[in-house]
């Protein structure tokens, strides 16, 4: 098990390094000069030079790459010379020194994702940590809705195969899969948040944290979560219904199900203990992938409900060519995928002992 984890983690680091390299070179060959964009109309060659120096744009791309890598790596080398790009600045890095000489130091630190070009003075880490929890709450709520309702409907469909109930569930799931999220988002917002807002008490838009109208600071508004979570959950729910149904139908035919009935177990135990656990593997695969991509931000839903999540942030950053934010977010998302994958691999092992 430990060997398995170490192997997985090593692979993950290699994957992340690959992503990082790809993203770095991709964005650096894109047309457009970030320094010029930051200056906007007030073009001035001296200022331009200063900016270029500050962000390291004056260096060749290979050294820019290694400096970026050095900033990201938890183990890094820094100079004590103030004029050098990788100066060990306590405001920038959150570090512990493990080895130092007169001129330089080797430190262990939290990966430094640099600062936003656009939102001056705001670090990428803080932007992510501001927006990601919102996305996480939204994604988690949606996937929970999708899982519970989806598995429930899938089991019902499989048990009452070819009944009216089954056909209805299948019809709804096909509908749910085929409706694009931006459309269902608008529809839900308009219907429940506008037409029926007096009954439901929901508003069309709103984020997890809202500023109190009377100036008493921020507060959590869980009511705002309902509509976006349902909207975002519809498609995974529809897929889970079908996956659970099909996989359970296969399992119901298995010999060990007959053995379970022959033991004298009740229908309920046979179905849920012996059946469902065997049927859940494809569901786990689908859900994990879906959950990870939701964590990367559900752009449409976040935009329409004005939910202040990471997806919305990335789109804004892309529009403004805010490279550090884009690269930081991509890396962060890749990390999430990798972590979710490791968790799922471990989970598979628990669900089906044949895998480990």
């Amino acid at each position, binding site marked *: 098990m430990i*060997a398995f984890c*170490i*192997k997985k983690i*090593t692979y993950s680091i290699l994957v992340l390094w690959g992503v990082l390299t790809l993203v770095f070179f991709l964005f650096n060959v894109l047309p457009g000069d970030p320094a010029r964009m930051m200056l906007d109309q007030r073009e001035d060659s001296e200022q331009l030079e200063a900016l270029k120096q500050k962000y390291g744009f004056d260096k060749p791309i290979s050294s820019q790459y290694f400096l970026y890598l050095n900033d990201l790596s938890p183990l890094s080398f820094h100079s004590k010379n103030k004029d050098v790009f990788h100066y060990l600045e306590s405001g920038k890095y959150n570090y512990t020194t493990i080895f130092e000489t007169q001129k330089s130091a080797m430190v262990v630190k939290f990966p430094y994702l640099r600062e936003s070009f656009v939102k001056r003075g705001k670090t990428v880490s803080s932007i992510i940590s501001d927006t990601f929890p919102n996305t996480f709450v939204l994604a988690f709520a949606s996937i929970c809705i999708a899982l519970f309702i989806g598995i429930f409907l899938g089991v019902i469909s499989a048990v009452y195969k070819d009944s009216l109930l089954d056909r209805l569930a299948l019809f709804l799931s096909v509908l749910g899969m085929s409706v694009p999220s931006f459309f269902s988002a608008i529809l839900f917002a308009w219907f429940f948040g506008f037409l029926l807002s007096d009954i439901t008490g929901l508003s069309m838009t709103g984020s997890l944290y809202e500023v109190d109208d009377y100036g008493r600071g921020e507060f959590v508004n869980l009511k705002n979560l309902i509509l976006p979570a349902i909207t975002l959950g519809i498609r995974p729910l529809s897929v889970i219904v079908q996956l659970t149904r099909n996989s359970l139908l296969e399992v119901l035919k*298995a*010999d*060990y199900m*007959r*053995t*379970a*009935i*022959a*033991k*004298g*177990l*009740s*229908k309920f135990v046979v179905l849920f203990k*012996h059946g469902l*656990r*065997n049927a859940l593997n494809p569901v786990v695969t689908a859900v994990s992938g879906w959950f990870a991509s939701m964590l990367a931000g559900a752009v449409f839903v976040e935009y329409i409900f004005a939910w202040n999540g990471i997806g919305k942030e990335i789109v804004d950053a892309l529009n403004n060519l805010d490279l550090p934010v884009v690269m930081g977010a991509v890396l962060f998302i890749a990390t999430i995928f990798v972590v979710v994958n490791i968790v799922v691999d471990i989970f598979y092992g628990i*669900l*089906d*002992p*044949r895998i480990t």
Partner: protein
Amino acid sequence: MGNTLLEFKNLVTEFHTEGTTVKAVNGVSFTLNKGETIGIVGESGSGKSVTSLSAMRLIPSPPGKISGGEIIFHQKDGNSTDLLKISEEEMRKFRGNDIAMIFQEPMTSLNPVFTCGDQVMEAIMLHQKLDKKAAKALTIKLFEEVQLPTPERIFSTYPHQISGGQKQRVMIAMAMSCQPSVLIADEPTTALDVTVQKTILHLMQNLQKEHDMGIMFITHDLGVIAELADKVVVMYKGNIVEQGNVWDIFTNPQHPYTKGLLACRPPLDKRYTSLPTVSDFMKIDENGEIIDNGISVAEFTKDLAIPESERAARQKTLFAKEPILQIKNLKTYFPIKNGFFGGITDHVKAVDNITFDVYPGETLGLVGESGCGKTTCGRTIIRLEEPTEGQMIYKGQDIAKMNADELRVFRKDVQIIFQDPYSSLNPRMTIGNAIMEPMQVHGILENDEQRKKRVEELLTRVSLDPAHFYRYPHEFSGGQRQRIGIARALAVNPKFIICDESVSALDVSVQAQVLNLLNELKEEFGLTYIFISHDLSVVKYMSDRMVVMQAGKIEEMGDADQIYNKPGTPYTQKLIDAIPEGKLEDIKNHLESKGVKVK
């Protein structure tokens, strides 16, 4: 009636599919007494499994439905219940508790995600209302009783970690857990090696003696019946054609179908020009009625035996020729990948340094238990597996060194017929196209029209209707599919055929027909066979020479008859002893051990 356990009275079970109703069981009546073993025999589709599943009310519904009759169960306390009239909820109390069942496929009958112990404990906790600790203790005791090695360890292993025989023991422990009065065993040993089968049968007999159970033992193999049954029920197409005392059935079968079943097992003491089949003893007219040909087994087999002198003469000319295939020091290893970057840390030595020759026109038998490497050996010869080391010389050319083009030519000459007639045909291809495909690949005949004609000839040759050209595999029975597999192998005019467990999945009665077909084709087309099987009786019947394999190595090699009569190693001896031969002495022995006098 104090001894009666289970009475079947006019049981009718139907299956409704696509508007047609099939009576899988049609008016079956028999009684099972305490301490008695009833053997229910018949080929697949005879309704024997459906009968037993009906008693447990395990018929999948829809499409199945028990539509008539009674199954009366006499409980320990003297009450009787008609199992077909009680509610599902009441039925649950009988299942596993009073009537327990063991199934055919130990590989798939245990739930893969729970430990063996958990699965046995579950039944104990349900019916005996014991707590977890007591149930665990009882489970481990049961595991000891069914002679599982290291019961405590097996308790916490998952089904995929133990062997097939061990799984079947776990199933038996599960069935025995609540001391049922009736044990239904549905082909419990068919999927196991003969040596394992023997130990399982032995175990069941002992358990029966100890607990005074009634056993319903369902099988297609009369040899197994002879080892343990008291009464025999012979089923054919949903009806009981004959039932009675095991001794009477074996010594004096009345119904032609019973005669056919008894005669079609490959005999061990002689060779026939062709095996008798069921159709030699009976015909079926247009109304589906059975017509007795009125011939006895002894009469029919009288002239079939090949005299020893004729066999010896044939072998003399056979081994005078140059070998067609020479296997020299063949090794096929499978790597075990492990370690940090998936490096190869060890090997499974599937075939470990074996050497033998095959002469043209010969049938060489390859026999051994599952996992001995016989199938890998066959697959290596046609390069479905890559050999690790050694030479395989076919007509002067080393197969291991052939390039892609040479291999194509070689594969036209050497064909393989696989074990599983169900999964080795593409379900989405008509059988005509399946047979025609290899002809197209190898460019045999000029156009598809000619090829189609040839396919029709081949279908006729393997006793199938040429009109079946446009049908799909699922429309055929197991025996018919195996014939299709044979026709496909013949399509490219091969010289050499490897039969890899080609009859293992078939009923004894169908097996006889396929074996006869293989022998006829061999004469007709001048073929050479390597015949691979786990069943020593079949290999012995088919082969000129026999190779016994164990753990990747050759245990013994030589004339088939000589090895059978004078086995050179204890392993071969063990294999031979384990064959359920269905001899009268076997029946006598086990009946007398129960105190029944036989004349």
